[in-house]
């Protein structure tokens, strides 16, 4: 019988030694964590989208704890609610979050442009782009295989008529799609704006015309007629200066190819607040 006792005692002693070692080690080598860190981290949405400019939600929470000058309104998906919570936790003034939405600068769906080849490869824009810039005639435009839709955490992007569309009412502005699009067609824009140039082709007008009846041909009509001079044309592509734009919608009415959109781009936070 003694053998069993010895074994029990030996294992117990080893266990106790390990326990004591671990207890001592955890005290001696304890890393001080700011007690506000878990609370702040819990406030953040946890999408790790990187829209705040830090490495994930952990990175932003750490920066907030360590540096007082880091602003509390950087979390775009979290919007005002998160900003308010963070401000309360850290005891700083609340700052409004500029809500943003993702917009796609291409409207070249299958009704206005066509394909130059039949593509049977991987169902990924990044892969298709490697083959002569994608299967569409326009190599600047949306390839339409939905890389952006795959990364969208809110299912705000759908594929329709061969190109991607953002349903801004579902978009939280995390910007993950902007990093995914191999043609860099998606950008973030303040969701109070109403005007958008939906083309990214910088080729000359005649060349664009041959590929897509919806593309910007760089005719500068919008730039001439804009009552506040908010539109400039560079590299054969119109761009809107949103600081000057008054959302009058005149450019959308007179655009010869109809590539300027006049729409409500309210994001998910504004839609929720309105409800």
């Amino acid at each position, binding site marked *: 019988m003694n053998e069993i006792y010895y074994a029990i005692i030996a*294992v117990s002693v*080893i*266990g106790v030694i*390990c*326990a004591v*070692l*671990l207890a001592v*080690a955890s005290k001696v*080598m304890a890393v001080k964590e700011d007690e506000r860190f878990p609370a702040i981290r819990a406030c953040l949405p946890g999408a790790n989208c990187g829209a705040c400019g830090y490495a994930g939600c952990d990175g932003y929470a750490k920066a907030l704890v360590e540096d007082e000058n880091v602003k509390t309104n950087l979390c775009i998906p979290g919007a005002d609610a998160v900003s308010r919570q963070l401000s309360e936790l850290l005891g700083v003034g609340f700052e409004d979050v500029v809500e943003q939405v993702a917009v796609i600068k291409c409207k070249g769906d299958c009704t206005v442009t066509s394909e130059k080849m039949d593509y049977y490869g*991987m169902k990924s824009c990044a892969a298709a782009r490697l083959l002569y810039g994608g299967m569409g005639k326009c190599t600047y435009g949306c390839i339409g295989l939905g890389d952006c839709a795959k990364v969208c955490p809110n299912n705000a992007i759908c594929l329709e008529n061969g190109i991607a569309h953002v349903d801004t009412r579902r978009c939280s502005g995390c910007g993950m799609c902007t990093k995914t699009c191999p043609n860099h067609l998606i950008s973030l824009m303040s969701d109070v704006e109403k005007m958008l140039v939906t083309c990214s082709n910088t080729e000359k007008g005649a060349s664009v015309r041959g590929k897509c009846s919806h593309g910007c041909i760089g005719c500068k009509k919008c730039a001439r007629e804009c009552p506040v001079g908010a539109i400039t044309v560079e590299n054969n592509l119109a761009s809107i200066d949103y600081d000057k734009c008054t959302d009058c919608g005149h450019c959308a009415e007179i655009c010869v190819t109809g590539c300027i959109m006049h729409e409500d781009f309210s994001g998910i936070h504004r839609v929720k607040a309105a409800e």
Partner: protein
Amino acid sequence: MTELAHFDFKGLVIILMSAVFVNNYVLSKFLGICPFLGVSKKLDQATGMSIAVIVVMLFATAVTWPIQYYLLNPNGMGYMQTIVFILVIAALVQLVEIALKKYVPSLHATLGVYLPLITTNCAVLGVTILNIDEQYDFVASMVNSLGSGLGFMLAMVLFAGVRSRIENCEAPEAFKGLPITLVAASIVSVSFFGFAGVIENLFS
């Protein structure tokens, strides 16, 4: 005390190479399948996990080998091996994690998530117990642990590549997800049987 097998340099190289290729823990002994299937989706995660496994295997062997030969065997308690080893390895991994967090935060950030996962991983326990079963001396045990860890890494990295290819294929509906992954794992495993006998004959 049992008679220990001693090895010259050539013997150690053979142990190392056979641990990597012939007696690969994942693909030939089927130990450590859980992390093999769980963490092999992305290459960076697979490498992180493998490095953590190598580190833990080496530490675990360095600790359990003396325990077996200087504590358990002299007292006639060799049969307590499994329980004592699990206990010691679990405590050791925790200790390593605490130490890493304090002194090498950057390494902790990369390996930290994987360390608790392999606390009582069967591949780690398997290495330590097999070192005793094979009656390797201390140096040979450490070399075998290193080889086993490298073999684990090789299997993980290879399979991460295989899986990224599978993800882009259209598998039949019934095979999607885990089934096709298991089928692929078995094929990779079969391919490793091609190494059987190669290493011994290479150095003989």
